[in-house]
Structure formats: C-alpha cells, structure tokens
C-alpha cells in the first residue's frame, strides 16, 4: 500500500507489538505522570526512577495506537541512563525530527548521517507527513518532559 511504509516502518511495528520498558514502577519512589490525547482518548503513564544523576529506570503503561506506543517505547530506550541535560537533548532532537521544535531550539537534521546518529528514533520521521498522528507520536514525550521539569524543580 503506497504511503503506508512512510508511517509504519518495520521498527515501528516491531516496537508496537513488542514495546520495550512496558510496565510500571512503584511510585513513590518513582516519579509518575499521566498524559491524555483528548482527541482520541489515548492514555500513557510514564514512570521514572531518578538516582540523583541520571534516569536509572523508566517504564511506560497505557493504551495507544501503533504510533503512540512505539514512540513511547523508542523514547524509553533513548533516554534510559541519560542525565537531565542529555535527556532534554534527546527530546529536542525528537522534536526537530518532527519539525516541532521552536526555531531557536531546532537541531539540524539534514543528512542521512544525522539520521543514522539518531538510531531507531529516526523511524518516526515518517509521521511528519501525517499531521494528525503527530499528537500520537508526541504524547509520551510531553508526558515525560513534565517529569523532567519536576526533577529540575527539586535539584
């Protein structure tokens, strides 16, 4: 089916069917935040164990479509073990990938080289062509981002 491969890359289907870091963490101590997509009813809950320096563990739970779940799964992989600053960098990169970053925050992604550096995350780039699904792709990220703000406030 023409057009479909742009959206549903193999990586996405794989992470949809076998989401990584799926589950919950005991909260507290884990930080926890829920996100809704009011347009479709999708829900995601993100759990983070912050050890004072880095994201020691992260889990995701909830209901969602292939884009929303695979994006959440890919996110957990890309931020696990990262420092606050590094995690924010990943978010920025992800938003740039979907052309969502504010101008001054955009990370240039121009070459295939750049995309390779992103690793599996790059699979989500096809979502750009399907604007309605962008909200699906960003749900987990926005929910996670609020947890980072919370950590920030306690440091």
């Amino acid at each position, binding site marked *: *089916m*023409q*057009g*479909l491969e742009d*959206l*549903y890359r193999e990586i996405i*289907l794989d992470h949809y069917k076998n989401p990584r870091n799926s589950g919950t963490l005991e909260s507290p101590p884990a930080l926890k935040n829920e996100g809704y997509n009011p*347009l*479709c*009813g*999708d*829900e995601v809950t993100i759990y983070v164990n912050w050890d004072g320096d880095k994201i020691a563990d992260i889990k995701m739970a909830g*209901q*969602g*479509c*292939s*884009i*929303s779940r695979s994006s959440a799964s890919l996110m957990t992989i890309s931020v696990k073990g990262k420092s606050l600053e590094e995690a924010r960098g990943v978010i920025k990169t992800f938003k740039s990938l979907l052309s969502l970053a504010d101008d001054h925050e955009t990370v240039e992604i121009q070459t295939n080289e750049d995309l390779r550096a992103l690793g599996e995350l790059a699979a989500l780039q096809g979502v750009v062509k*399907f604007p309605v*699904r962008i909200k*699906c792709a960003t749900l987990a990220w926005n929910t996670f981002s609020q947890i980072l703000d919370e950590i920030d406030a306690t440091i």
Partner: protein
Amino acid sequence: MGTLPEMPNLNELSFDPKVIKKDFPIFSQNRDKPLVFLDSGASSQRPTSVLDAMDDYYRTTHANVHRGVYALAEEATNRYEAARLKIGNFIGAPNPSKEIVFSKNSTESLNLIANSLGHGYLHAGDKVVLTKMEHHANHVPWIMLASYLGIKLEFIDHDEQGRLILDNLDQTLDGAKVVSLTLASNVLGTITPFSQIAQVAHSYGAIVVGDASQYVPHMPLNVKELGADLVAFTGHKMLGPTGVGVLWGNLKTLESMPPFLGGGDMIADVRLESYTPNELPYKFEAGTPPIAEVIGLGAAVDYLNNLGMQNIANHDRAIMKIALEKINDRFGDTIKIYGPKDYKERSGCISFSFENVHPHDISQILDLHGVCVRAGHHCAKPLMRELGVAATARASFHIYNDEDDVDALVEALAEAQRYFS
C-alpha cells in the same frame, strides 16, 4: 415515532444511493480513489440545493433580520422565519413559530437547557437523570451544573448490548427533576426506548429532554408523540450547514425558562440596571442569528422531505443489516462489534475494534483506501471507560451510502488486519 418495517435489502428502497450521490458535490471531485464516506455520524455531507440556498441568500437578499424596515431586510427576515416554520413542521411542532429556537449546534441547545433550568428550576440536592451513553454535549453541561449548584446526577444503566435497563426505572426516576437522554447513541447505535422513559419521568413530574442529534437525520420524528418537553438537534448531521442547531420545546416549558444568552433581539426592553425578555422564540435568540445557516437548514429539510423520512429510515435499516451481516461474515470472532446485535434496534452507525489493531491505525489504513471512518472516543469517554477501551473505530452511514461502500469498508478492514497481524 412510527414502527419501521424490516427491510431485506437495498434493492427495494424507494431511492437509489448511487443517484443520491450525484446531488452531493463532494462525491464528484476528482480523487485518486473514489470517496467512501462513512463518517456521517460526525458530520454529513450536503446536497447542492443546500449550498445554493445559502449562496442565493448571500447574493440576493442578505441583510440583518428582525430589525430593518427596508425591503431587503424584510425579505431576509421572511426567508429566515419561513425556514423556522419548515423545520418546526418537519418534527411536528404544534406551534412552529414559537417553539423552534435556533442555536449554533446541539451542544449550545443542550447548554441553554442546563443553564436556564439552573436558574430557578434546579436547586442543590435536586436529581438529574442521564444515561451512561450520553455524548459529552448532554453530559458535561450537567456536570458543570452539579459543580455550580450541587445537583445530583444519576444514570440509567445499560446491558452488555448497550440496551438501557428499565428494570428499576421507577426507583431511578422517582424524585427526578430532569431526565435527559439521547434518542440514539452515537457510539452504540442503540435506539433508546425514549417515549417509555419519558412517560415514567413525567409521572414523577420531571422535565424530559431529548438529544435527537443522531435520530433526526435518520428517522421520522414527531415531537407530539415523542413525549419530550425539550429536544435538541444539529444542522450539520442532517445535510445542513455547520453553525446551526435547533432547540424545540413545548410552550409551557419554554415559557417557564429564563433566557440564556443576553443581548440584542432577546429583549423587550432594557434599562441601565434591568431588562424585560422578549417573547418566544426570540427570548432565546440573542444577537445576530446564523441567518444563512438557518436558510440552508431549511433547504436540507426540503431535501429530506422530498425523499421522505420513512424511506430514509428504511434505507438506514437496510444498510445497517447488510453492514452487520457482511462484517460478521468476514471477521467473525476477530472483530468486536459494540451495541445491539439486532439491526432493528440500532441506527446510523457501527462501532467496532480488532484485538490487535488500534482504531487509529484502522482508520489510517482505511483512509489509504479512500474509506473514511472515525477512530476515537466519539465524545463519550464515560462509555468508553465502561467498554474498557480508549477508543473504537466507527463506520456511520447516510442516504448516499450503498452496498459498494460496505464492501469497500470490509475489504479495507481485511487489509488492515493483515497488515498488523
């Protein structure tokens, strides 16, 4: 609310959806794939006659209504008021010139009701009864009123097929001051036993409100027989334009209700610190109304009348039967269909889900086949929660849909299932 005959198939209908499609310009657009529009439950398409009525109004006679002495303004007012009578007659209103109030959509009509009844009629502790399958438009206004006034909400339950459970109706309705429910569910397709409930509600002295948003587009409605005191519906689901909704009420109820929005046209007099409301229906129509939209809705009613609402109801039944059969035949246990199993108990739409494919993904893949269905919570989150899902896919039908559309849906669904298996 006459009885509806069983319809064996689409061939016996009094009109041919393929011919009907020609009246709707959106189906004649050049596209990669033909448009299979199965989202009329969210908003229907419009025939050329509706677009022409609005265009002609703007090109030849636009002026603000009710205020001008000059001929142009008079002609605008005449067209506006003629549409009111037409729409009133369409639902059998005994006093169409006074009982039909124009709003911007069903949502405003229902908010008008909740807000107005909240000023004088309802007080802390009073009971308002809804169902658990209401659209947010007939649910959130009452939640808001509960938080402002302290009224109590109670709910009529339904069974696993989405049929309202009437066993302890007396207990639920006893002491209710308002009973407000849908005539047809926009998710489950359930046609509710509205008149029966209204009768019991009236025996307890309640005001009975009907959300007819999904009913009026598909079935003949006669408010004299319905048993509701107030009824809301919306233009864009019944072949009319966006931006116009309707509130019908019987004279006694409407007269007892204070105004909702304040402004021009709804007053008889204004002083610096007080005002006197205008007579019905103007009391509830503040500001410049959706003039062109009301005229467009009048043309939509002409179109529906021309086909005949009973014939339209027959088509609704027929396509519901065919669609249920074909979907069940093809997908068997791998699909979950919500709502009544018997097509005779439902109208307008079929909500469903596959185990391994999220509704969003279904809708996306269907779109690539030119098939438009809705995926989401359908503005009925409490119902979704009860069904244990975040979203369903929903195919909904109108007079321009035929068996080919059902076949296209089934084929595309099979493709989606294959893709994600």
